């Protein structure tokens, strides 16, 4: 727990803004101070960071072959018209 003016319940809703560095500088500092003094919020931040890291390991779908070929054809037509 800490003596800053965010409650823990409020702080967890600001974690994405905090990680983006998008809070007002004074808010950014106060949130950092709260985190230094609060095990629960530190765990919550760590869960968000790890979630982002896990999500970062996911991969994208692939483009279906027929669509891919249709786009390639469109590209070739465009290139032929250019020259």
């Amino acid at each position, binding site marked *: 727990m800490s003596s800053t003016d965010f409650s*823990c*319940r409020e702080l967890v809703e600001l974690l994405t803004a905090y990680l983006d560095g998008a809070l007002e500088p004074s808010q950014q500092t106060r949130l950092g101070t709260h985190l230094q003094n609060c095990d629960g919020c530190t765990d919550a931040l*760590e*869960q968000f960071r790890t979630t982002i890291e896990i999500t970062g390991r996911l991969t994208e779908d*692939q*483009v279906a072959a027929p669509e891919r070929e249709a*786009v*390639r054809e469109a590209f070739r037509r465009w290139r032929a018209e250019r020259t």
Partner: protein
Amino acid sequence: MESTLAGISDLDLISRLRDGDEATFMRLVDSLGPSMLRVARMYVRSRAVAEDVVQDAWIGVLQGIDRFEGRSSLRTWIFRIVTNIAKTRGQREGRSVPFASLAGDDLDAPSFDPSMFLASDDPRGPGHWSTLPTDWRTIPEDRLVARETLDVAERAIETLPPMQAEVIRLRDVRGWTSEEVRNALDLSETNQRVLLHRARAKVRRALDEYLEGEATA
């Protein structure tokens, strides 16, 4: 400036496209195509129409590439094109898509179970933790990055409202900046952040439920 394809600067990429380099163009299609299709699908009635929109967007990209001035990243510009075409097509279909149906109606929902906090008038500390979140740092790294764990995250993303899913995919799967995602999907700065936060909170919760029991107290 962010780079649209790994290993190639946008400037390079643009000049290769202007030169008619098919291999580079196809790499771009493979990289951005799946996201573009999902974005298009948000605004039009069927997958077939969405495929058509993506095709038109690529033609728009090629026709516009000589005029592209690089004020945004290339990928942001491409997404603006697909978003605009999809919205126009959706309107022509008489389909009006309220923002709430894309964004989800749970944007104000709490990220952590409210029962984990003390009441806002509790003398021990209003709104402070009554139950601490699990300390994930005690979970073995190989468990966190195991295929099964990634599948839990993937399934959680698949169940998100479409705009939440797309924001988290672009930001956290693909690593785009908030500015790029905001421009690409035509969102306000605040909406982009709220959507991302909700999406992360739900993936976090799914992971927490799955990993429960792995952490040591």
